[in-house]
């Protein structure tokens, strides 16, 4: 009993109370005030940038993440286990360091002559970096379980590699790809640390939603910060809720 009480207090102090305060703050002035805050042109630009960049990034993740997972499971080459371990580096690396690291190669002193600093491409690059592991790590276990016999049977019946991929492999991997994509999206929408240094945070150009919120907090405009926070939070939770719904329905189908 005492244990449960302590757990409850801890969760309340850390999560419940703060979330309640956020929701309360965003709704103090009613719907009109909320609407006014989120329809501020700078806020709209920031939210739009975040959502569009996140969508582009998760599409790229779906493609490359699946290819990487495929290579890590089905291919064999020296150093594979090291590559496999390094996939998690973006999870382990502090986000601010991710920004510094990307700037070292793709900043103004780029040895490759590629300078994306302070452009919208930088937003995409940073988001790609921090969300890299999601699709790879959700597709990998499914690919391991995937029965090669099925692919071989299809091939022996005359199916081309493209047909095998389209009709057998991708349908089996789809739920895993979708859950990786949903988690990437939720992460991308809220990402902050890796964007701070590399994007320059130029309003209307490279300022993402999270960075806009940060700026409003610095200006002590907590109502605006709270309103935009709720929008981003809602976008992330909506995608994750859709994912849960989709996976539940699917598992009922299989059973």
């Amino acid at each position: 009993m005492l244990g449960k009480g302590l757990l409850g207090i801890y969760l309340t102090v850390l999560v419940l109370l703060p979330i309640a305060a956020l929701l309360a703050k965003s709704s103090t002035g009613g719907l009109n005030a909320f609407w006014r805050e989120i329809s501020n042109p700078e806020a709209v630009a920031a939210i739009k940038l975040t959502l569009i960049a996140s969508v582009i990034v998760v599409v790229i993740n779906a493609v490359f993440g699946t290819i990487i997972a495929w290579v890590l499971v089905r291919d064999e080459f020296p150093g594979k286990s090291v590559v496999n371990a390094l996939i998690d580096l973006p999870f382990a690396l502090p986000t601010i360091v991710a920004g510094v690291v990307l700037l070292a190669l793709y900043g103004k002193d780029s040895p490759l002559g590629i300078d994306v600093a302070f452009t919208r491409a930088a937003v995409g690059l940073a988001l790609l970096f921090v969300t890299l592991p999601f699709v790879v790590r959700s597709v990998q276990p499914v690919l391991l379980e995937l029965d090669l016999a099925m692919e071989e049977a299809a091939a022996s019946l005359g199916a081309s590699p493209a047909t095998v991929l389209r009709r057998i492999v991708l349908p089996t991997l789809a739920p895993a790809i979708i859950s990786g994509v949903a988690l990437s999206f939720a992460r991308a929408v809220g990402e902050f640390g890796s964007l701070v240094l590399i994007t320059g945070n130029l309003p209307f150009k490279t300022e993402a939603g999270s960075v806009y919120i940060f700026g409003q907090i610095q200006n002590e405009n907590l109502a605006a910060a709270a309103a935009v926070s709720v929008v981003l939070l809602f976008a992330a939770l909506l995608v994750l809720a859709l994912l849960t719904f989709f996976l539940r329905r699917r598992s009922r189908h299989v059973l």
Partner: protein
Amino acid sequence: MSSSDAGALSIPGPAGAARVSDRGSAGAPPAAAGARASRRRQLGARVIALGYLALLLLAPVAMIFYRTFEHGISPVINAATTPSATHAFWLSLEIVAIAVPLNTAFGIGMALLLERGRFWGKSILGVMIDLPFAISPVVVGLSLVLVYGKTGWLGDWLAEQGISVIFSVPGMVIATAVVSLPFVVRETMPVLRELGVDAEQAAETLGASPWQTFWRITLPGIRWGVVYGVVLTTARALGEFGAVSIVSGRIEEQTQTLPLFVQDRFENFDSTGAYTAAVVLALLALATLLAMNLLTRLTRRKTEA
């Protein structure tokens, strides 16, 4: 972490993933006709995958090590031993030393409750636990300011008690604990499920108290899952930037952690200082990966034995 976990919110990430690591290509050699084409496709996929990883991940990380040590080791040592650098380093460790044990105790307790308990609202509780993964760190910081800041819900009360939370270490500990909250819970739950209740029930029948059962039976059974969660918690706690940035006030040599120090040095055009601190954090991240791998191998060998 398996896909059978309670919520879709749970990250499929490092845990389960690392465990599925390298298994050889199980493919039997296809018929001679398609063999060359299939080999070509495989090579193509390998080049695309490794090229992408090299450009996005490996080259940038290698570059920062090169940039840091470009002018030899002594500027690096100088940058690492300035008072503000060492202060930031120790402050980061101090916060980790408080937040990680708290989250570990909470994580084990909450995992037991979610896995063994039967009560109404359990799945809602599961979603609450995962919430910090879905919330932007900036939003976490803002939410904490709205409760514990001077104009926040508890602002007046805290001021009367003479407790300062925001712009001081307690707030930074809370922010760090929030963002790293789910790891131990989520890593402990699957091992707890695997462990089952038979041994615990046997201990109970033999007259063991609940505490004895926990310390002698449950905890030894789940220890590697817990340790894995602790490793992830520590990595996240050391690197947290957004939430801590908001609640700390970022005062040099007072509330500046190592990640905040990186930003501060970078924005003040002290690239040696920024790179040095970034490399220290990157090395800690690599150590985390190493620990994750070793733990995965250890537990895999145990389950195979």
